[in-house]
């Protein structure tokens, strides 16, 4: 049995004096497609940030590829949720995607032919060939989201971390993003965070619900809509000391 790609052990994180993650234990193995669901403010993004090394745990441990978080940037592709960048930035999709190659490059090294080929390939995978030379400001939300996935793929990662890839895009686009995931899970280990409980269960191999504490469900359960809904609410009931995070979205 190979070592897990991500190993969280009794992981707790406090941000600004508030416990965001409490004793989360989780392992992600090679080839997994793990979906993590939970309400907003439940700590989903924080968990990804800890795995990326952007946030330090206050207790417990995290190992990623057997090392501390942030040790192997080239092996991880990250698709952030919030767009910190400026939509008017003078940059084309091609160059945006090329930036995904930076984790494979040394300081001072310029991008070469191989980097450009990898970026073009990632653009094809994301189905953006026709738009490759457009400025990012000209794209729709869904197209931009696919460009960000292409950026993550350009670095040839082994692990793909996606934070709410379907938030703020229309339902039709959502399906194409999930279809892309379906295609990618053949080659990659994927952790996808979402509050989009309805769609995700069809695609993932394992599912976890996170609301400060984490509950992991193995594939054998293959939760249907009702059980998923129940699971979604389950941890909420256990966390009564955070009024602001115990709010849940009504499930249809």
């Amino acid at each position, binding site marked *: 049995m190979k070592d897990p790609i991500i190993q969280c052990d009794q992981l707790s994180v406090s941000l600004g004096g508030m416990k965001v993650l409490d004793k989360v234990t989780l392992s992600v193995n090679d080839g997994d497609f793990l979906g993590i669901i939970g309400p907003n403010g439940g700590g989903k993004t924080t968990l990804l940030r800890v795995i*990326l*090394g*952007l946030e330090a745990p206050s207790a417990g441990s995290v190992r990623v590829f057997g090392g501390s978080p*942030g040790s192997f*940037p*080239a092996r*991880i592709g*990250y698709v*952030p949720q919030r767009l*910190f*960048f*400026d939509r*008017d*930035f*003078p*940059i*084309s999709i091609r*160059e*945006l995607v090329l*930036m*995904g190659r*930076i*984790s494979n*490059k040394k*300081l*001072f*090294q*310029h*991008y070469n032919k191989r980097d450009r080929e990898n970026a073009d390939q990632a653009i094809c995978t994301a189905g953006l060939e026709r738009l490759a030379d457009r*400025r990012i400001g000209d794209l729709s939300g869904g197209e931009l989201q696919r460009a960000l996935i292409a950026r993550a793929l350009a*670095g040839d990662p082994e692990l793909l971390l996606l934070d709410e890839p379907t938030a703020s895009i229309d339902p039709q686009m959502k399906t194409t993003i999930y279809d892309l995931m379906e295609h990618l899970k053949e080659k990659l280990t994927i952790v996808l965070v979402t509050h989009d409980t309805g769609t995700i269960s069809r695609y993932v191999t394992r599912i976890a619900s996170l609301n400060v504490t984490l509950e992991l469900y193995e594939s054998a359960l293959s939760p249907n809509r009702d059980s998923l809904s129940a699971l979604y609410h389950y941890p909420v009931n256990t966390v009564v000391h955070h009024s602001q995070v115990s709010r849940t979205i009504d499930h249809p």
Partner: protein
Amino acid sequence: MLHEILAFEFMRNALLAAILSSVACGIIGTYVVVKKIGFISGGIAHTAFGGIGLGYYLGINPLLGVIPFSLFAAIAIGLMSKKAKVAEDSAIGTFWAVGMAVGVICISLKPGYAPDLFSYLFGNILTVPTFDLWMILLLDFFIIGVVWLLNKEFLAISFDEEYARVSGLKTTALYLLMLCLIALTVVVMMRVVGIVMVIALLTIPAAIARMFSRTLPGMMLLAIALSLLFSISGLWFSYQFDLASGATIILVSGFVFFLVHAWRLVSASLTAQ
């Protein structure tokens, strides 16, 4: 007529200063605009006045005082806002005023009249000495060299600093280096438009260029061209109407800036109809 103007050595120097400073200004101004760090750049520029006062007090070329001083200001402001959890605008505002205060104290401690200090504050492209031109040329080469070596890193931290960090870049070090380049650009521009107005020439050409550019290098080239256009036409107006050169250059830039935006607004409302 051009022959006539260029017959004067000070005019040739002024033209050279305009060309050399436009190069630094277009390249670094582009980063200032896309990374939205204009206010930090203004802070560094004003703090640099302390270096001029210090240089004057020590009796050395103020340019030699201002280079270490502005580099120190860049690193200190950058570290304070990144690491010490000081609100960025408080850090900038404090350095801004403290730097000016140091300059004023140093100058007042030195007996006698300081005739050309005014030109550091408000610029006088007509009095750039040849030594300063060589310094500006050297700084230009340094800035171009660093940007050429680190263009992919600077693009990454300008675009999305957090993603750059996740990609394994030393973002804080790169950011501080970028601020140091801004400090050196301030030194370069100081002779042309002066410390007080440097921020305008650093941002206006790049801000206009951004509206017409698809790539960062394209934006840099256009910003260089615009900066050159503003400097030379400003210089010409100041010569024709006997006005202060630094202020005239800024007024020309500002006028074009407003003109471009007004044209944008009008054309946008016309297409909307």
